[in-house]
């Protein structure tokens, strides 16, 4: 474990910050700009994992394991969310033959 920490600390914390910010922004933009539901899902996962990365980096630099517990939580929740979300997506696809998020907008007003 000691070794791993050493490896992580090779880079200064700013690099991790910048990387996860970039990843997060890519995720946000992906969610906002893409219309394919599967891509949007992937973007959401990207955002979650950028946060995980940041949490792990902070945890290592602060010598505090609490953040790592958070990470596991986020992974579990993300897995559950994906399971439900993909199931919905499959049903949408079966009914509309498309994964376009705009394909289901009849239920309004």
């Amino acid at each position, binding site marked *: 474990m000691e070794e791993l920490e050493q490896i992580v600390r090779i880079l200064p914390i700013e690099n991790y910050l910048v990387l996860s910010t970039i990843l997060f922004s890519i995720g946000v933009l992906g969610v906002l700009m893409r219309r394919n539901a599967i891509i949007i899902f992937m973007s959401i996962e990207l955002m979650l994992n950028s946060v995980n990365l940041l949490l792990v980096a902070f945890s290592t630099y602060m010598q505090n394991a609490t953040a790592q517990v958070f990470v596991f939580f986020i992974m579990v929740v993300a897995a559950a969310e994906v399971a439900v979300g993909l199931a919905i997506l499959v049903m949408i696809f079966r009914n509309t033959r498309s994964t376009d998020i705009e394909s289901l907008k009849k239920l309004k*007003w």
Partner: protein
Amino acid sequence: MNMYTIFHQISGNALLLVLIPLLPLIGFFINGIFGKSLSKTLSGAIGTLTVAISFIIALTLFWGLDASFSPFVVNLFEWFSVGTFKVSMGFQYDQLSALMLLIITGVGTLIHLYSSGYMHNDDGFQRFFAYLNLFIFFMLVLVLGSNFLVSFIGWEGVGLCSYLLIGFWFKNPAYNDAAKKAFVMNRIGDLGFLIAVFMIFFQFNSINYIDVMESAKGMASNSPILIAITLLLFVGATGKSAQLPLYTWLPDAMAGPTPVSALIHAATMVTAGIFLVVRSNVLFSLAPYTSEIVAIVGLITALFAASIGLRQNDIKKVLAYSTVSQLGYMFVALGVGAYSTAMFHVTTHAFFKALLFLGSGSVIHAMSGEQDIRFMGGLKKKLPITHITFLIGTLAIAGLPPFAGFFSKDEILAKVFMHNPIMFWALAFTSALTAFYMFRLYFLTFHGNFRGTEKQAHHLHESPLSMTLPLMVLAVASTLGGFLGMPAIMSNYNGFESYLSPIVSPSHGEHPSHMFEYTMMGVSVILLFIIIGYTRNRFATKQVIPVDVSEESGFAKTLANKYWVDEIYDTIIVKPMLFISQKLHQFFELQVIDGAVNGIGRLTNYGSQALRLIQTGNTGMYLIFMVVSIVLILLFNIIS
């Protein structure tokens, strides 16, 4: 505390005492719950027997009761307690409640028996008996209560039963109105009673009759609080006992079936006010100011109602006004401090007024529902028993010796004379009016030629035994009842007065001179015969038939229209109330309250109409909104 311990603690006489009101209550539950599945005979038998057994128990307890008996109180359970103030559900048995128990259950039994014949063709037979039993129960609670609040339960209960029974034929809107009128009028009086109870608690820190009377004895005469308490109690009494100005419900209460009129509106419920005053006679004795008002109100009511009775053509209306008038008599007696005399008149009046009402019921039954005496006449041949018993009742109320009414009325007159001769003359005049309208009623109904339709003439028949038997029993009681309290000149021993002596403070010892009393009796009897002769000549021999209300003229028109009291009340109270209510309805209800409620609804409606357009169904838009909002929240947090 469970039922076992209750019955374990009270035993012997106390248990019997509790059974008296309990039996009619059981009868009520049986008839009220299982009524529809019981046959009429069974239902009538249950209703009658429960009251009859109560009567027998009351008689057993009464046996050997005399003035030396000290009251005993049965506390069933603690009803409620507030701080150190405890109210227990208790019954008090003493000379006064014993007397009332006998009247209520005795007359009640006869009226139940009578009803089983009278109501036999009615669909609501079981319901009727359930109500009657409930009424008897509440009336017994009223007279047995050991404190003002328990009596108040009964007081309200009889008001409720009166409402239910007046509106018994609820399909007729006029009857419902009469029932509502009785209820509302009674409520006005009830409020007085209730406030009086509050003030009694405030003053004496207890509401038990025994405690209150004991601590009141030490109080100064005519203290303001006592005057206030007694006046408010009297307001309660005017409501229940139909005195001016709250009497108008009683004549209207004749809408109920005739046995109800006999039971509630003649023999028992209307005497509740008298009972209350006698129960708290210690307070009234200490407030001569109130007593004077009681006497004056009673006197005016007696005269007022008797004069109205002169020109009524409905057989039950005449009797109703006569009841109001006789109750006025009793209040005069209470006002002059002759409490035992008032109770004596309550007793004799219960006999002969129940008799007269039941007799009129028998007449109405025979006449297929006709109540107007102008269409009767000559009934004495067809209804011999009703005729004889009705005659006895008439003689009793008119005050011919030796019938019951003579003794009690004579005693009231004698007591009033010692108090104030002017009141005496007014009351004596009322007594003459009473004789007049009663014999007018009697001769028009039973003498002369029959004036009804062919169909009615064909249908005329004497009532069945279940109806005539109570008439006969009551006739005997009306004949002999007066000997319970002989006037001083005939006997040294006034049984009634000495019997009640532990309850009421002795009335003024002085009696009018024997000479005066003999003269008074002689004059009243001669006057009575003159009145009988005159009415007989006018209504039986010449057969003058009273005209319709609309054809009356002069003062008679005023009398026939009952002094327009109903119309006056209508104009000065009901109409303004309705007017104000309507205005409030139009403005406050429709504009303000409805406006506010509808406004909120409309606002929400418009708001959502506008807001729902935001929901475009475009998921991309939603996501943008979400992201922008989150960014804004973050920015806001950073700035603040």
